[in-house]
C-alpha cells in the first residue's frame, strides 16, 4: 500500500470517528435498527442464555423494554456479554448503547468514569456462601478462609473492607469470569464464595444439591443495581431512566402484559391514559412515539411480572425490599406526567 492510500484511509477513519461522536444515541439506535445492550456473561435470573440461546432474565428484559419503547420491537436487541472489567469501558467508548448487567451504582463510576446511571432495577447486597458442613453460621467466623470472587467489581473492595473492619484475614482467589469463580468454589478450592446475595441464590440453585450450601446472614454492602449509559447524552439517559420508571409505574397501576391493550383503549384513570399514550404526550417528551410504554409492557409485562418470571419462579427470590413502596418495599417510581 502506498503512503497516500494509507493516509486517505486514516483520514476517512478519523473523519468518521469525529462525525459519529456528535449524533445523539437515540438517533444512532434508530439508524442501526437495533439496541446494542451489554449484559453479564451468565447470571441466572438476571441475564443468562437459555438452552435455545435466547437471553433471559431481569436485566435482559430491561434491554427488551428499552428496544420496544425506542424501536417498537422488543426483539431488536443485540446482546453483548461483558466481563466485569469491560462493562464501564464498553459503554463510555460507545461499543454498546447501554448496559443492563448487575452493576452497582457507585459515586466514582457515576462521576469520574464517563458513564451515567439511570434508575435502580434491583436493590442488592453482598453476601457469602459456604458449604453447609463447614460449621460456620456467620461471616465473622470466616477468619483464614479462602474466598473465591470475580475481578473488577465492587465485591473485591467490600470484602477487603469487611475483613479490615472485623479483624479477619481472608485469602482471596480472584478470577476473570464469574463461571470460573463459581466452579472453583464448587470444586473445593475456596471455603466461601462472595458476590451479590441475589447471585449467590442464583448460583446455589444451579448446584447439583443446593441444600449442601448455605448463604450466611451478613449482608456486607449496599448494591443498588442499575443500567447505565455513556456520560453526556441527556436525552438517551432520560429514555432509559423513564422506561424503567414506566415499568414500575405500570405495576403500581395494575397494567399487565395481558390487559395493556384493554387498558389503553378503555381505562378512565388519567395516570393510565398518560402512561399508555391514550392522552397527553409522555412519549413526545422523550422523543419517542406516544405508545412507548404500551409497546414495552405488551412485549415483556410490568416490573412485577418481570420479577416474578425471572427471580421468584426460577430462583425463589422473594420481593423483600424490592417490593413497591406501597407494599412495604423501597421501589418508588417518579411520576409519569
Amino acid at each position, binding site marked *: 500500500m502506498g*503512503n497516500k492510500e494509507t*493516509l486517505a484511509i*486514516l483520514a476517512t477513519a*478519523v473523519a468518521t*470517528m*469525529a462525525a459519529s*461522536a456528535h449524533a445523539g444515541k437515540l438517533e444512532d439506535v434508530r439508524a442501526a435498527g437495533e439496541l446494542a445492550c451489554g449484559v453479564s456473561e451468565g447470571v441466572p435470573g438476571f441475564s443468562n442464555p437459555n438452552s435455545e440461546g435466547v437471553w433471559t432474565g431481569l436485566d435482559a428484559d430491561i434491554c427488551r423494554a428499552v428496544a420496544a419503547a425506542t424501536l417498537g420491537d422488543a426483539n431488536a436487541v443485540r446482546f453483548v456479554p461483558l466481563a*466485569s*472489567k469491560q462493562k*464501564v*469501558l464498553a459503554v*463510555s467508548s460507545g461499543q454498546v448503547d447501554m448496559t443492563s448487567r448487575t452493576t452497582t451504582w457507585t459515586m*466514582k*463510576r457515576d*462521576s*469520574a*468514569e*464517563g*458513564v451515567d446511571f439511570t434508575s435502580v432495577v434491583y436493590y442488592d447486597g453482598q453476601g457469602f456462601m459456604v458449604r453447609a458442613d463447614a460449621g460456620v453460621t456467620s461471616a465473622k467466623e*470466616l*477468619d*483464614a*478462609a*479462602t474466598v*473465591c470472587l470475580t*475481578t*473488577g*467489581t465492587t465485591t*473485591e*473492595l467490600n*470484602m*477487603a*473492607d469487611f*475483613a*479490615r473492619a472485623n479483624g479477619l484475614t*481472608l*485469602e*482471596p*482467589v*480472584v*478470577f*476473570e*469470569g464469574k463461571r*470460573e*469463580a463459581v*466452579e*472453583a468454589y464448587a*470444586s*473445593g*478450592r475456596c*471455603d466461601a464464595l462472595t458476590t451479590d446475595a441475589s447471585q449467590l441464590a442464583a448460583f446455589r440453585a444451579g448446584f447439583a444439591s443446593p441444600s449442601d450450601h448455605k448463604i450466611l446472614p451478613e449482608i456486607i454492602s449496599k448494591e443498588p443495581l442499575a443500567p447505565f449509559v*455513556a*456520560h*453526556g447524552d441527556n436525552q438517551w439517559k432520560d429514555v432509559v431512566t423513564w422506561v424503567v420508571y414506566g415499568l414500575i409505574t405500570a405495576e403500581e397501576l395494575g397494567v399487565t402484559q395481558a390487559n395493556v391493550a384493554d387498558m389503553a383503549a378503555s381505562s378512565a384513570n388519567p395516570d393510565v391514559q398518560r402512561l399508555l399514550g391514550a392522552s397527553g404526550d409522555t412519549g413526545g417528551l422523550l422523543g419517542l412515539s406516544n405508545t412507548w410504554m404500551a409497546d414495552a409492557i405488551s412485549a415483556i409485562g410490568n416490573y412485577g411480572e418481570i420479577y416474578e418470571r425471572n427471580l421468584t419462579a426460577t430462583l425463589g427470590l422473594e420481593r423483600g425490599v424490592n417490593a413497591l413502596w406501597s407494599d412495604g418495599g423501597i421501589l418508588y417510581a417518579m411520576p409519569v406526567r
Partner: protein
Amino acid sequence: MVVVIAILYVLFSNTQENLAIRGIESGFAFLGHEAGLPIGDSLIDYSPTRSYGYAFLVGILNTLFVSVLAIVFSTLLGIVIGVARVSRNWLLARGAAIYVETLRNLPLLLTLFFIYTVVLAALPHPRDAIALSDGVFLSKRGFYLPRPVAEDGIGLFLGASAVALVLAVMFWRWAKSYKVRTGRSVSGLRGALAIFLALSGLAFLASGQPLTSELPVYQGFNFKGGLSIKPEFASLLIGLVLYTAAYVAENVRSGIQSVHAGQIEAANALGVSSGVVTRMVLLPQALRVTIPATTNDYASLVKNSSLAVAIGYPDMVSVGGTIIGQNGQAIEIIAMWMAVYLTINLIISLGMNMLNARVQLVER
C-alpha cells in the same frame, strides 16, 4: 514521518477531547490512592491499605517470578526432550515427538484449564491433606512446606559459606589452568563442589546450626505458617513450562540436526569420548541455531503468562484489570502493561543476543 506525527497528534488530541467530554479523569494520580483491593498471592508484604501503584508492583513481581521460573524449567525440560527426539532409541524419540506435537497444537489456555481443574479435582481438602513428610502437605489449597527461620549465628554461617565459595572457585580455576599446562585432567567441578560442601557444612555445625524451620499446621480453615505454593501459581508455572518446553525442544532438535554429520564423524575419528564430542563439537555448533529461535519463545512465554487471569493467579494483568474496574483508567493501565512487557522482553533479547554473540562463529 510528518504524516505519522500528524496522525498521532490527531489521535492523541481526539482521545483527550473525548475523555474530557465524558468526564473521565486522566493521568497517573490514581496510582497514589489507597487500593483497597485484596491480593491472594504476593511476594512482598501487601495489604489493601497500600496504594494502587504498590498493588500493580505486586502484580509485576508475580509476573516476573512466574516468568523467570518458567524460563529456567522450560529450558531444562526442552533440552531433555529435544535431545530425546533425535535419540536412536525409537521409543524415546516417538514419545518426545508425541509430546511436542500435542503440546504445540493445543491452545495454552486449554492446557492451563486442564491442569488447574485436574490438579484441583484430584487433591483432597486440607483437612485430609496428603502428608508427604514432616511438615510437607499437599491439598486443594496448595503445597505447604516448612519455612526456614534464621537463628543467632546466621551471619557467621553465611560469611563462612561465602569464603568457602571463593575457595571452591579458586580451586576450579586452578584445575583448569593445571590441565592446560600439563595436559593432565583434574576434575575441577567435582573438587570445587566437595570443597564448598565440606567447608560450609563444618561452618553450619560450628556456628550452632543457626537455621530451624517453621512447620505449617492445619488450623480452622487452612494451614497456618510455613511456605505455601498456591494451586493457581503451580498450574500457571506447569502450564507455561510444558507448553514452552515443546517449542524449546524443537529448537534444540533443529540445532542438533543442523550440525553436519561429517563434523561428528571427524571428531569420532580422533578417538575422544562421545561426551567430549558432544561438549566440544556438537553443542557449540547447535547453539548457533538454537539460541535465536529460543529468544522468541522466551518472549512469548512472558506474554503468555497473562493468561493467569483465567485461573485466578494475581499477575500484572489480573491486578491491572481490577484497577481498571475500580477507576476506569484503562489507557493508563494499558500503557503500563505495554511498558512493562516491552521492558522485560527487551531485557530478554539483550541477554540472549549477548549469549548468541558469544557462540557465533568467529571468522578470522
